[in-house]
């Protein structure tokens, strides 16, 4: 059973790699997208109904397309960026594409909770929109954003199991391919346990950071 453990180790690294890199890019795109959704909304600091509507529809398209189809749909993009559409690195592209709209909604929800009084105070002091976003909206919503990021990260772990279809590998894929499809229950249980531990750690870090950042 040397195989089992080396397989689990490889898969763990693959999962960490895929979700880690994907999470970084998801934050990179999802955060601004969520911010845009909030500030361009009616009553926002940079009202732009048309842009808001358009972004909303794009996000909804991303959110409603099944992940397997998304994987196929973005494969030209993946090939453009990574050179091929299969493999662990290639899986990151559809993961990001799937997670960004989700993250945008989570960010939107978090920012909506920032009191209007604080935004007013910032505006009254002559802040630019950029300053309102970076110095008030995001810092004030930080605990909620951190919780949302944990939510997104765990969702990514879930999606990454499906990325096995395009050779993404990872724990979820191992659990499905070997455990579920080939009835190697030991492989399945071990990989699931590692997955649960991984998610537990992510959630724990998220909760701790959120509490640390809460000053209310």
């Amino acid at each position: 059973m040397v195989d089992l453990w080396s397989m689990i180790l490889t898969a763990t690294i693959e999962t960490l790699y895929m979700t880690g890199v994907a999470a970084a890019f998801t934050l990179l795109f999802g955060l601004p997208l969520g911010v845009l959704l909030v500030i361009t909304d009616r009553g926002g600091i940079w009202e732009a109904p048309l842009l808001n509507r358009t972004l909303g529809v794009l996000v909804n398209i991303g959110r409603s397309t099944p992940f397997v189809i998304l994987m196929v749909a973005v494969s030209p993009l993946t090939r453009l960026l990574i050179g091929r559409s299969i493999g662990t690195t290639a899986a990151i592209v559809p993961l990001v594409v799937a997670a960004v709209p989700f993250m945008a909604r989570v960010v939107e929800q978090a920012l909506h909770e920032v009191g209007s009084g604080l935004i007013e105070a910032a505006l009254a002091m002559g802040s630019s929109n950029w300053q309102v976003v970076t110095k008030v909206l995001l810092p004030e919503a930080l605990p909620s954003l951190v919780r949302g990021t944990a939510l997104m990260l765990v969702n990514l772990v879930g999606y990454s199991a499906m990325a096995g279809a395009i050779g993404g590998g990872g724990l979820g894929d191992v659990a499905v391919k070997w455990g579920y499809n080939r009835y190697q229950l030991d492989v399945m249980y071990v990989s699931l346990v590692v997955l649960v531990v991984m998610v537990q750690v992510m959630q724990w870090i998220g909760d701790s950071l959120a509490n640390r950042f809460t000053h209310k």
Partner: protein
Amino acid sequence: MIELKALTKVFRQNGQETEALRNVSLHVPRGQIFGILGQSGAGKSTLIRCVNLLERPTSGEVWVDGREITRLSPAELRAARQEMGMIFQQFNLFDSRTVAGNVAYPLEVAGWDRSRIASRVAELLELVGLSDKAHAYPAQLSGGQKQRVGIARALAPGPKLLLSDEATSALDPDTTRSVLALLREINRKLGLTILLITHQMEVVKQVCDSVAILEGGRLVEQGGVLELIGRPGSRLRQLFYEPFRDTAFHLHPGGVLAALFFVGDSADEPLISSVVRQFQVDANIVQGAVERIAGTTVGRLLVEFTGRPDDIQAALEYLARRGVSPEVIERG
């Protein structure tokens, strides 16, 4: 500095309309400390929020420093706002920033560099007595401490105009006095114009040059503090002095209860004393105060005169000649 022209603000929500301001025209000269008074819900906060356009007027014009503020471009508005400090009724401190971080905020916005910010923040926290709380978060502060952070934040960038919505309501009398002294000093030294809302007559007495009084969204009175206080029946006078009637005072038979009011000069003479000596009457101060308002002594006393009716009459006439305008309230 500020000129409001026919300002009207109507709130529409859930089909209900609230006319918070109705046709208010107001002029606040540069360098003045200008008080806005009025009952709860009279529209004071709404008015002050129109000045920096936190609230967009339904109609009317808002001129600040020679420019119509509703017509500024976003960039111009930001620049204009950077020169106006604002102290909020509900403080509106940033929960995620420490006390020092809150005070630093407007300086960051104005693009000050790090070291200047640090020293300016330290200076202001010293002024409001919160140096030891620099690293505390708003949630760890008492009500008055929060309010002082709000004051420090508004003053930090050295604004030309300060909009203050009850800046001392949560402060004890001592702290209030020192904050008011600070405002007076900045006003004198740097020519800061201050538009302040207050419910505390102490504040009006100590720092205001002029006041405007709102009632149900309308401007009902406006003028210099002394001028308004000197005017019988003015609203300001009503606000300053509660009616004398709730005293449980029993007049002596033949006594005359009269309200005396005197400003400035007449206050500096021994009026009561002269009357007692000249007219063979006794004068007992039942209630009232002689105090400094806007730098001048103002007295308002309820006095019972006893003695022969003729003498009392003569005394009252003498007082009237001396500009005290006695008003007979009751005869025993």
